[in-house]
């Protein structure tokens, strides 16, 4: 039985970091405000701070984790005791995230991403950075081994066994005992990485200014200046400062998360590092990419820029990203077409280009987007592009397709058109083969399930 481990003793401080800062400011304000007042307020304030700190310490005391038999177990909670099990073969990706405060102390948080659409996945906050990196590599290696064994066993039994069907009794025991990190375990030396892409900071700044939030922020600033100049009373804008603050934060957040994005190829998958103040390192395991999307906004096209995003199953757990639910993980926040093509080649083998334009009959319905409607497929992928002024091209590997839908609205029926949608796991990613003639859509609906099945079978065997 592998040993139980504890988190780093400073973790309560880090976890409540943001609240602590806010609380500290509040307390200071209150102290200054009541400078002449009695001491009771100060005592009650310190009681609040004390309770928060003690709660943090207790939660640290009752939390422990263990790696055994290819399963990561986390036990936590004093009153509502929770025991969480994360089968490593099911892990979609593991992130190492460092908040600003954690960086000061050299700590990091480990986040496990599972496939579930709403469950919160596993979090280990916080560990020393070096331990977190090592643990991530070990967990990924164990998960990979378990997955492969599952696939091999499935192939032997001549049945399609999901990699997840390897239960806790799965033959990972060999890896398990020495899989636990610690001074005793032989830490594998970091293997060499091949850097595939590095974002240029100037270009990122330019791209964000030319993007939609950037345009909003620019317009807002221009309006503010105009109003001040016209009225001569700066006070008039105060009520709108809240909105301005929101816009500026969203722009800043995007810059902060995408700054310094580096994509590198490592044996355990694609490594993705980014962040200015809060840094994050993610590993996307091979074969876990559900869809790839290429986004080309109008203004970016002038410079030949584009954005490449991938969809990995499971929720984005970073709280800050919840507001931008539709946005996927950007492998290339902004880059040239050549960068995007190279990355596409790494992610997919010989991806097709959308070459079949929509039928001429669709022009009436899709006056503004007709020029971008196209699709293509081969025996591995389906690609479809759409958009009015911002072209979005989505590649979906056939073996990842969850369901296929044929949709026809009243307008389309009159024009003899139909849309085929291919859904993949994750949040709202759908490749839409839009506005095809009914005959073509029907034929697709007949063919695609078989093609997808063949692709899945090939995926299991290989």
């Amino acid at each position, binding site marked *: 039985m592998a040993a139980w481990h504890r988190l780093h003793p400073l973790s309560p401080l880090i976890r409540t970091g943001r609240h602590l800062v806010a609380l500290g400011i509040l307390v200071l304000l209150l102290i200054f405000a009541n400078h002449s007042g009695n001491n009771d307020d100060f005592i009650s304030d310190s009681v609040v701070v004390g309770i928060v700190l003690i709660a943090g310490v207790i939660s640290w005391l009752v939390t422990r984790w263990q790696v055994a038999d290819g399963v990561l177990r986390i036990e936590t909670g004093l009153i509502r005791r929770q025991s969480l099990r994360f089968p490593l073969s099911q892990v979609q990706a593991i992130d190492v995230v460092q908040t600003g405060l954690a960086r000061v102390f050299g700590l990091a948080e480990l986040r496990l991403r599972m496939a579930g659409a709403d469950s919160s996945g596993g979090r280990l906050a916080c560990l020393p950075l070096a331990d977190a990196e090592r643990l991530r590599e070990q967990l990924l290696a164990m998960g990979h081994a378990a997955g492969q064994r599952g696939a091999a066993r499935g192939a032997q039994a001549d049945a399609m066994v999901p990699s997840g069907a390897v239960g806790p009794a799965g033959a990972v025991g060999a890896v398990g005992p020495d899989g636990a990190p610690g001074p005793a375990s032989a830490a594998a030396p970091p293997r060499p990485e091949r850097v595939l892409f590095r974002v240029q900071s100037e270009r990122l700044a330019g791209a964000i200014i030319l993007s939609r939030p950037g345009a909003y922020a620019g317009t807002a600033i221009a309006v503010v200046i105009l109003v001040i100049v016209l009225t001569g009373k700066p006070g008039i804008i105060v009520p709108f400062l809240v909105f301005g603050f929101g816009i500026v934060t969203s722009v800043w957040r995007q810059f902060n998360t995408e700054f310094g994005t580096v994509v590198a190829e490592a044996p355990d998958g694609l490594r993705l590092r980014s962040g200015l103040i809060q840094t994050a390192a993610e590993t996307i395991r091979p074969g876990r990419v559900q869809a790839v999307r290429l986004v080309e906004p109008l203004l970016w096209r002038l410079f030949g820029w584009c954005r490449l995003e991938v969809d990995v199953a499971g929720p984005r757990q970073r709280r800050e990203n919840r507001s931008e639910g539709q946005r996927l993980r950007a492998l290339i926040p902004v880059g040239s077409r050549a960068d995007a093509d190279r990355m596409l080649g790494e992610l997919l083998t010989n991806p097709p280009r959308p070459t079949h334009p929509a039928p001429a009959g669709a022009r009436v319905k899709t006056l503004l987007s007709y020029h971008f409607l196209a699709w293509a497929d081969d025996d591995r992928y389906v690609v479809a592009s759409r958009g009015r002024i911002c072209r979005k091209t989505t590649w979906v590997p056939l073996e990842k397709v969850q*369901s296929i839908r*044929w949709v026809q609205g009243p307008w389309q029926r009159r024009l003899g058109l*139909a849309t085929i949608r291919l859904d993949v796991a994750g949040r709202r990613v*759908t490749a839409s083969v839009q506005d095809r003639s009914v005959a073509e859509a029907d034929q697709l609906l007949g063919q695609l399930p078989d093609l997808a099945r063949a692709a899945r079978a090939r995926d299991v065997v290989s």
Partner: protein
Amino acid sequence: MTAEPGDAEIRWQRPSRLLLRARRIQTALVTVPVALAGGIIAGTAGSAGLGLGIGLGLVVVGLLCERFFARRVAAWGYAERRDDLMVKRGVMVRRQSVIPYGRMQFIDVTAGPVERSLGLATVRMHTAAAASDARIPGLDKADAAKLRDQLASLGESQAAGL
């Protein structure tokens, strides 16, 4: 005549005939109180004739809804094929979904009060994609349980990882 997507030899199964009755009861349960309330309020605030007119108007709206629901019920169908389940539905926006058995994550069977009183249930399949919805309403309770078990066993034997 509207074109049917997919090949012609699919054997479509329909929801139970009782589903139409369930929809009618649900429509009536909404229409009657709304029409009464509308009529009474308009009758007390304005003239009695106005109240009567509004009440009758709301009843007509309810009847129109009933026609619409009848068409929707008629449009609903599902087919169990060798490797996947097909569900078609919709009158205005027509949809047809293909869900491979191996992709099913879980299946749930639900029944509201009206459905329950008629012995009906709704079977719903969930995949890892949030967008794919496959819902078959108005199945006989026994049929629903049978379909659920059948789908579950098919899903198990064909299950594929993400």
